């Protein structure tokens, strides 16, 4: 099974600066380098909030998790965060081994994620 990667730059008023990466298919040893290649410009840029939408991710292996781990580390280094939304049950199971890592956030729905991102951005722009 192949992997399709779609990188979207959100320009809405609530999530300005957030980059959404949609993954479709299977993230494994064979397809992980493709995601790494597509993420490189995103991580080299200024983005601090990267949201991975995994609604259509059918399978993830540890090689795939490694790519997320690198992204998390790079974003965290500049005060950013990697968020994950719409994890299918089999994906959630693999994510359990990244349990409670700082600099990683997992959300059930986009609404929950939006609320969180808005709060985070208020913190950055408004010291109160």
């Amino acid at each position, binding site marked *: 099974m192949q992997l399709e990667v779609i990188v979207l730059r959100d320009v809405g008023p609530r999530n300005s600066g957030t980059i959404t990466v949609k993954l479709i298919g299977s993230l494994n040893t064979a397809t992980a380098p493709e995601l790494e290649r597509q993420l490189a410009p995103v991580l080299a840029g200024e983005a601090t909030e990267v949201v991975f939408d995994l609604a259509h991710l059918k399978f993830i292996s540890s090689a795939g998790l*490694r790519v997320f781990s690198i992204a998390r580390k790079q974003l965290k280094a500049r005060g950013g965060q990697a968020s994950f939304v719409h994890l299918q049950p089999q994906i959630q199971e693999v994510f359990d081994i990244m349990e409670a890592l*700082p600099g990683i956030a997992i959300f059930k729905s986009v609404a929950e994620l939006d609320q969180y991102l808005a709060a985070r951005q208020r913190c950055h722009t408004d010291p109160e």
Partner: protein
Amino acid sequence: MKKLSDCRVLLVDDAKANLDILVEGLKSDHKLSLALNGEMALQSAIHTSPDLVLLDIVMPGLDGYEVCRRLRQRPETAEVPIMFLSSLEEVQNKTRGFEAGANDYLTKPFDMLEVKARVRSLLKAKAYTDAVKEQIASELRVAREIQMGMLPHDFAALERVYPVRFGAVLEPAREVGGDLYGVCAAGPERLVVFLGDVSGKSLPASLFMVRVISLARLLSREIAEPGRILARLNDEVTSDNPSGMFVTFLCGVFVPSSGRFTLANGGHCRPVLLPASGAPRWAVKKLGTALGFEPGLEFERTELMLSEGDTLIFYTDGVSEAFNPQEECYGSQRLLADAGSLAHQSAPAIAAGLLQKVRDFAGVAPQSDDIAILTLKVGRNGASSSRQEGGPMDEVRYRRDADENVLQLTKRLFQGGQLTIT
């Protein structure tokens, strides 16, 4: 590299006259096999392993395109170079030939000099690829021996001293892999058991595996508590880890006199506790976080009281996530049930039996991940009191001394560096 004169060329044409011309032109340069139709060509390709196939297209029965496709489908002939020799000279015919998997296409009538030049060119490329493949394969074979040598296979010395029996199997999906396990005699009343699974497969995983297993052995002797062993190991493998590798790791410390087995889990699949009587169950509740992501993590511990006949099964997800040809997963429920059916067997028989159950389930589906299983069965308590002076304990102590020498050496090597042994 194979000499061109040792290379075998399979010539396929339904017109004997054409074959005669090719034989005449090539017989002094290469070994030859002949086939007068598609069926014969497929048979010959299997039996004589040619280095090159010269293939006619228009033949009764299987045509050249179909022969080419079938050769590509069979693993034995999937990579043999194929050149079409055909009177069909339309560009559509040539395109179709390349789409069927051909490496080259020459139209009839041909000049023998050109055929010979192209044959040599294709054979040289094949010989070069074969040589590179063989070199990688032989290096991997040695790497596999080195890696297997790092894993304990003979537990007899330990079993004479501690009242436990061990079983272990490890099968990498490729030549080398990222699964690891170990058993360390850390003291007369302290036996450390660990098992881990490095992210990914093959060479990168195996290099990280070597780092993890070496550190785990040292830390097992230095630190009493499994949660602390995990915390230290995590700190060590998290530093200088640019490629973001990680390892799921399970560590347990067994105190034979009390039967207390303390476990800590770094993101690994939950071990199975197979009681002497009663149903199999998970030995720990939580997965915890894998090692390598973030320094400074803490790990929860779980305490079990083991008695005679109880067995613990540590395994990697190559077991629980084995797939059959219908793409169904072996899964944790099947694992518990199969483990239960093996409860009354010995530790090695449980490990081997479980591996067999997974293989039976997977059937002809290729093994997709490394598989490791380590079993520990508690024997009669007090077996440790049968120690004799100058007996087996000395043997174990000797090994400890050897490891302590390594520890001292490592301390000196890494003095002031990344690795600090406390």
